[in-house]
């Protein structure tokens, strides 16, 4: 599908680009787009004769409380699976080298870089992404609301990772000091440098208003 026809189709259906991409992933179009995404593997993905003892490719993943069946390559990272197989594009891929934090997800309540986690290693474990933090009626998680109230994000690209890291912190330590939060959030970069806004948001979410610092 060329760019022009995508634009025409979006125009015809009056949907946002994000929604359109999500629908494409969710629909049968995934089969053709998968070979595009995994382009480096052309010709070697359906391997002739799997080596005995090696992993099965069709696995079940527990993501945001749902059991999802998905075909996963042996070398596939969780960030790839979430974004391009399950349509959960809230998890961002930025450095793809465990050096920025944009892809942060929770596995059994602990934060990991999904770009540096093999999908096959999270079978039977509960994965929570930014999409899994919303309330039953789609309302924002209190930490997300605090991020909004404190104008946390600037460009917003690192925000899903920052929110997941903050939620994991508050689950373990509901009343962190600003310094503890700074330390806990040290695995998430923000190129806009909105660190103080994020820390203010975490202090707000934790009810620690004394440590909300609005600049001079």
């Amino acid at each position, binding site marked *: 599908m060329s760019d022009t026809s995508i634009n025409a189709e979006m125009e015809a259906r009056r949907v946002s680009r994000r929604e359109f991409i999500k629908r494409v992933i969710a629909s049968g179009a995934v089969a053709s787009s998968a070979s595009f995404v995994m382009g*480096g*593997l052309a010709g070697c993905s359906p391997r002739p004769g799997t080596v005995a003892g090696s992993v099965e490719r069709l696995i079940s993943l527990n993501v945001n409380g749902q059991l999802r069946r998905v075909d996963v390559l042996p070398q596939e990272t969780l960030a790839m699976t979430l974004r391009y197989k399950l349509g959960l594009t809230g998890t961002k891929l930025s450095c793809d080298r465990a050096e920025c934090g944009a892809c942060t997800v929770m596995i059994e309540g602990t934060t*990991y870089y999904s770009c540096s*986690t093999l999908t*096959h290693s999270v079978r039977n474990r509960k994965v929570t992404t930014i999409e899994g933090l919303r309330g039953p009626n789609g309302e924002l998680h209190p930490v997300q609301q605090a991020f909004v109230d404190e104008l946390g994000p600037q460009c917003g690209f690192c925000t899903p990772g920052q929110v997941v890291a903050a939620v994991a912190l508050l689950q373990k330590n509901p009343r962190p000091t600003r310094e503890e939060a700074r330390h806990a959030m*040290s695995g998430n970069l923000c190129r806009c440098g909105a660190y103080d806004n994020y820390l203010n948001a975490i202090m707000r979410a934790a009810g620690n208003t004394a440590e909300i610092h609005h600049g001079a």
Partner: protein
Amino acid sequence: MLRDMMPLFDLYQPDTLDNALDLADRLGPEGWLVAGGQDSWDWLKNRTRRTRAVVDLSGIAELKGVRETDGGIQIGALTTLTDVQDDPLVRERYGLLATAAGRVASPQIRNAGTLGGNLCQDTRCWYYRGGVDCYRAGGNMCYADTPEGQNREHAVFGASRCVAVTPSDTANALTALDASMVIRSKGGERVVPAARFFVGPDVNIQRMTVIEPGEILTAVRIPGTWAKSAFYFEKVADRAAWDFALLSLSVALKMEGETIRDARLVCGAAACVPWRLEAAESAIIGKTRNDDDIERAAVAAVEGAQPLNFNGFKIPLLSNLVRRAIKGAGGAST
């Protein structure tokens, strides 16, 4: 569009050590052993290395956790750095190691990265990591030790053709604590003291440790010798998170009243192996922490240091760290 994938490999996920040893034996040099993967995936994504097969050790429960042994503790090699840092036994007796583990990389990397992986990781020399044909990669030159070579991070001690340094924060802490490494293979077990586990380029220019293909580091044993000593750990790096050390120093002092009865000073990122500062230790053993002897130790620590073009700063930095450490070494939690 978008991101690249790692090249295809066969993935094995053994859930017992015996299965892992079978696989390591069968695959030999063709099987890449992965613990937390926080370094391994980068090598494969960057295509500076390729592998036919990966053995993912992260599901082997018997290699995780801390337990008490006769007089000391044993830490499973797959215990994450976060779990090492938070473990009550480690904190109570070996605060040095807890502090060092807590200074590795970033929280998410410590959640995935393991103690064994941190000890076995390869050097960060960027020429080597960039995939050039240097000595360490099997070639016949060192690109870091040339007139224009960028060697701010490189060795001031023990260089032999290759000038790369150990990147591990926990390696020097464990060397200071006289730890031993338990290494298993299908043929049996050997226990190697930390002082011999790490190898410099004079011993083997293509490896950082004594581990052979087919072997797996299964545990780290720490004897009671240095439990609850006065400890000090400091890591100097350009950034507070993620970054590797420009220099780090682990110190354990056994105090008897005001007198230093025994001492261990081991620095990281100064040589290819954790570098023990024996001359500095001798300068303070049997002494009190007085300025004259601390000064003697600070001078002795850098004797024989050989700076490259851009890493001369490591020499006064090491002296300063030694001064600070001896004065500052404190109780169980440093």
